[in-house]
């Protein structure tokens, strides 16, 4: 399918502590008149209680008591607003390094990453880390917002030197996979967010909202090979639907058409699509992203965790090389067994080896490692108890990631991106 403007655009913020991410999101909502009067009044009151002489718009997203006390974001907040063009879902993520896993969580669904830089500090460790994560997650669009321009006299030369520094880093570290643009802003005073800034007449580009409204997210997913993970088997067992067997799921990539020849993985059984249903509607065709039920011509005995693919376009095995981001306080070690969930399919994996770690502050690669600690990113080799039906993440964002789950605590302890 061609380029389409999505109805829903998902954005995640990034950048170091206090760079102004939450303030920016608060501004965006305030300036688009998306904050109702009672919510605004509540924020004004808490700002006054905190002894501020201005309205602290970051209080809109920093909703937890601990966050308001410390003036920082700890966990992801989801914020919504809409324009005439589309609906926006914003994940406001924490900038503190300790909460990097929450930043990764917020960025995992993002179409756009807004990376903030404090103009006074320029490119810092977190900028490198977050650019790397945007690259790792293949977030299609990165907007670097150089914030707090009001504190540096709206200095054009300074803005340009930061832009050049970031561009040089992106080139040097080969951070590919995204389209990048730059904006000088002041979140506090709402400059270049919705309205242009009179202090920065030298800046001729888009305001933030203009940049967001014009983001075209290519829906590559429908061009990719078909991946239909079976999520649930619908078997009504009533007289009327005695032999009904609907394979329900959300199409990860590609398309399904009535009459398509399909293979069920991992069994390899083949059949043909008899019908595609969405509630009471019969469809001729369904595309990536849709939740449907598929009926096959033959009884192939497929179940949850299996996958329908079109004939001939698959190659999956039990051993995978993968980048991972570790998200637990207990380190990852070689030889340990975890549960793995790839999409809706679950099995067990053993960690066979740790290839390297990327030191995300310097983007240097470290080999000869013995474990992965909280927030470490790097490459590992895994072997699974059954084939992992995943594509390379960089080719197929919707079928290339998995999570690791601790077998004892049941917590989600890591996320992986198949190489």
């Amino acid at each position, binding site marked *: 399918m061609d380029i389409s403007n999505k109805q*829903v655009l998902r954005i995640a913020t990034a950048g170091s502590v206090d760079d102004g991410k939450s303030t920016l999101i608060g501004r965006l909502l305030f300036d688009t008149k998306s904050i109702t009067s009672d919510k605004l009044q509540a924020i004004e009151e808490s700002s006054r209680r905190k002894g501020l002489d201005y309205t602290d718009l970051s209080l809109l997203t920093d909703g937890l008591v601990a966050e308001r006390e410390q003036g920082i974001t700890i966990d992801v907040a989801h914020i919504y607003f809409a324009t005439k063009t589309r609906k926006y879902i914003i994940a406001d993520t924490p900038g503190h390094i300790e909460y990097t896993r929450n930043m990764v969580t917020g960025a995992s669904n993002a179409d756009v990453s807004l990376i903030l830089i404090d103009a006074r500090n320029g490119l810092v460790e977190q900028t490198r880390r977050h650019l790397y994560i945007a690259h790792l997650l293949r977030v299609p669009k990165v907007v670097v917002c150089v914030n707090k321009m009001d504190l540096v006299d709206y200095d054009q030369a300074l803005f340009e030197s930061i832009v050049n520094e970031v561009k040089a880093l992106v080139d040097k570290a080969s951070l590919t996979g995204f389209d990048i643009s730059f904006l000088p802003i002041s979140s506090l005073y709402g400059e270049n967010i919705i309205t242009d800034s009179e202090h920065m007449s030298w800046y001729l580009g888009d305001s933030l909202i203009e940049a967001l409204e014009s983001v075209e997210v290519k829906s590559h997913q429908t061009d990719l090979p078909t991946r239909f993970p079976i999520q649930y088997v619908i078997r009504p067992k009533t007289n009327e639907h005695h032999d009904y067997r609907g394979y329900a799921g959300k199409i990860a990539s590609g398309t399904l058409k009535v009459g398509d020849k399909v293979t069920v993985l991992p069994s390899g059984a083949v059949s043909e699509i008899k019908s595609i249903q969405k509630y009471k509607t019969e469809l001729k065709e369904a595309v990536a992203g849709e939740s449907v039920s598929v009926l096959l011509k033959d009884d192939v005995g497929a179940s949850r965790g299996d996958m329908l693919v079109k004939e001939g376009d698959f190659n999956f095995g039990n051993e995978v090389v993968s980048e991972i981001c570790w998200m637990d306080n207990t380190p990852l070690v070689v030889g340990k067994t975890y549960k793995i969930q790839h999409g809706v399919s679950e099995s067990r994996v053993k960690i066979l080896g740790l290839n390297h770690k990327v030191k995300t502050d310097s983007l240097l690669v470290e080999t000869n490692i013995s474990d992965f600690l909280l927030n470490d990113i790097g490459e590992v080799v895994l072997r699974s108890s059954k084939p992992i039906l995943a594509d390379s993440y960089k080719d197929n964002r919707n079928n290339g990631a998995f999570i690791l789950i601790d077998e004892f605590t049941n917590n989600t302890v890591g996320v992986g991106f198949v190489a």
Partner: protein
Amino acid sequence: MNVFDGQFPRELEDESIYIMREVAAQFERPVLLFSGGKDSITLVRLAEKAFYPGKIPFPLLHVDTGHNFPETIAFRDALVEELGLELHVRYVQDSIDKKIAVEESGKYASRNALQTVTLLAAIEEFKFDACIGGARRDEEKARAKERVFSVRDDFGQWDAKKQRPELFDMLNGRINVGENVRVFPISNWTEIDVWNYIREENLEIPSIYYAHQREVFQRDGMIWPNSPFINKDESEIIETRTVRFRTVGDMTCTAAVESDADRIERVIEEILSATISERGARIDDKRSEAAMEKRKQYGYF
């Protein structure tokens, strides 16, 4: 407030149906918490769609405070009948009688907080491992922080600092003994998304969402429905006005808005031009700045 072309973005429905199916696949004893409000009505439609032509593979639970709008109860029973659903009702009054909950007193007395006690008792009684609820992240600032699969401990408590990372659309519902999960399939919907969905799907909703004549009185700048459950003082005068409700909670904590919107299109128009949020009419949130976060720590939905 603007809205994308007045349409409901269908990818939200695909996402919610996916979540419903994950619940059915990952849990042994899920339940859908049904209040009779527009959000839980939306959940029922999503569950219907997720398993069609099969039946919804889990029951509904209504935690009945005894302070409901009668219209809501009538609506609930008709819906259950029409769709052939299984409904459990558990009463806050029973928890009070058993002395595991204590009735509040005073002008602002409400049973809203007591619902938690009855809910936790029902979870234990039926051994529910997942409770599906209609909370949305746009409702309130503590909700904005919650995951789609939100793990609660034995006491139903939410620990904001120990939330599991939720990556892409992969949901981890594995729990330890004693824990249960609250599931929020319409986390990413806003109030207007719900209304547009109701309009596009032609869903029936309780009549109190539309403009009607009702006995009300004024308190703290808001319009309250008259009922035997609310403690009034002499200065609070009953009058009949044309109003509607934006949310359906208890009669003791849900304020009305003056309105003549008698059809869904007009309700939507009204919401689009409203300057006050949906929860601005809920007295339970006004108790303190962190009211919702605190209630959730104690197992509230």
